[in-house]
């Protein structure tokens, strides 16, 4: 995870995986909810592959939900859906939020078993360990368990 900012309250940006039974936890961090969502998406991709992903084409998605936490689940599920039906992996995400509506562009390429050696396939984002919150230092985090 990288840190940036000036002064005492450095705001972090980055992502992590956290352990869960048979599945995998993803969590993104950022100075805004949108950036935390972008980082959570990178964590989702990293469940699948460690390989560098070329930005060959862009896909736009939209989703909405009753609250910001459910919106994270919707967002991750929207990515999982696009990965599945387009046979793509995505390496860059740009998220814009308007309340609990999300519009995003994601860039990626067709999945290639030799290049990406995909470790596993996300089935769906869950409400387990679902949390979108801001810490005292101002950093937003957004994470949940993904069934793989």
């Amino acid at each position, binding site marked *: 995870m990288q840190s940036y900012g000036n002064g005492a309250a450095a705001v972090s940006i980055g992502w992590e995986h956290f352990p869960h039974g048979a599945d*995998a936890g993803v969590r993104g961090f950022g100075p805004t909810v949108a950036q935390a969502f972008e980082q959570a998406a990178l964590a989702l991709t990293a469940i699948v592959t460690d390989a560098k992903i070329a930005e060959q084409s862009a896909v736009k998605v939209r989703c909405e939900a009753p609250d910001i936490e*459910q919106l994270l689940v919707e967002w991750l599920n929207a990515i999982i859906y696009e990965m599945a039906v387009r046979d793509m992996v995505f390496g860059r995400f740009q998220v814009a939020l308007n309340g609990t509506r999300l519009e995003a562009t994601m860039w990626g390429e067709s999945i290639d078993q030799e290049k990406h050696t995909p470790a596993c396939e996300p089935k769906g984002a869950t*409400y387990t360990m679902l949390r979108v919150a801001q810490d005292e230092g101002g950093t937003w985090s957004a994470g949940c368990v993904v069934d793989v």
Partner: protein
Amino acid sequence: MDPARFTQVDETTWRIEPTGAMRVPSIIYADEPLIRQMDDKVYEQTANVAMLPGIVKASYVMPDAHWGYGFPIGGVAAFDAEQGGVVSAGGVGFDFSCGVRTMLTGLSVADIMAVQKPLAGSLYHQIPAGLGSKGAITLDAYEMDAMLKGGAHWAIEQGFGETRDLARIEEGGRMKGAKAECVSERAKERQRREMGTLGSGNHYLEVQAVAEIFDRDVAKVFGLKLDEVVVTIHCGSRGLGHQIGTEFLREMLQTSEAAGITLPDRELACAPINSEVGQRYLGAMRAAINCALANREILGHFARRVFGHFFPNADLPLLFDVSHNTCKVETHKANGKTAKLFVHRKGATRAFGPGHPDLPPELSAAGQPVLIGGSMGTGSYVLVGTGGEEEKAFASACHGAGRAMSRHAALRQWSGRQIVDDLAARGILIRSPSQRGVAEEAPEAYKDVGAVVLAAERAGLARRVARLRPLICIKG
């Protein structure tokens, strides 16, 4: 978990007495070391299940249980529609009817070892495995609906499988009450090119040797002979199931609140069985079960075709095909009366005992084969349902070894290359598109499957018939 948190009933039965909002007790079947290995979240999750409306008798936990989402993996619970019972999307999970089928080959270990490498290579190339692998089958809208209604029957009509298989599949290969119209277009779109693919994660195809026989009489009925070889396939309802699970979890989260159901965990989102959402979910879930049954039938056909290239005279009859992650309407005795119940099994296997009317005549005297997938290195087991008057946990048993550590932790401990090399030195060939995937599924990341099935036997859930050891593993 700390065993002191439970009331110990006997060596393998532990109770959580109902407290707070729990309507029934929780009962965990496991020995003390397995209880100690289980995550504390299993306690919390099974207690949460016991709070759901209309739950009957108890919230049960199998010996291979681990922390899931909503239900623990290895959780069993039955609901009575007449008592306001619910059906829970979280209680069934994302991979409907994920399950295991085992086919006999009549071949010896020596037959396989003579062609082990080319056979492993051929299986790996002919069985699409891993993310991004393509199936040879594309379904149009008409065929999609026919598949969702027909299950393994549909696969056989398309030329993928054999009619004699049907009697050896739960529900005779076709889940009744499936409603293709309850499945969203998005779910169907996700499945269009996924028929006949293995998937990834813990899904696999293994060629296995019968390494040990525990019950000679039942093994004979099952056709299992020492040092003969079987083929086992573990996979589920692929993208279609995942999408249906995702969509209904979201919908039930909204509707459970509207139905006045207080959820102890959002992941337990549910709907009354006798509600529009509940009925629509059941129609979609049954269609997803058919998708999994069709998919395993196709994969079995692919495996037969590959074996046919190497052994033109080989016959691969199906021993049995079991489903995990289901909600099925079954008749059970509960509280002194016989009732039709909606039995949720999440990472648990149906285990009907001898004489059960749903078993084919040739298995009726022995009981239902219960196929337990282990890990790549340690092996698997074939059990038999015991059931009868003493039926426990609504005739359910464990489904696998159960993970002892997360994928995250496994990745930090092992490299896939090292595991492949170590297993090769032990005569086990692994073929997988991903070394990292192999590391995440490291044999040591799982509990001791031998201890799990022994606990299941001691608890009276099912009895051991044979142990299988892997010779070839195609891992998705």
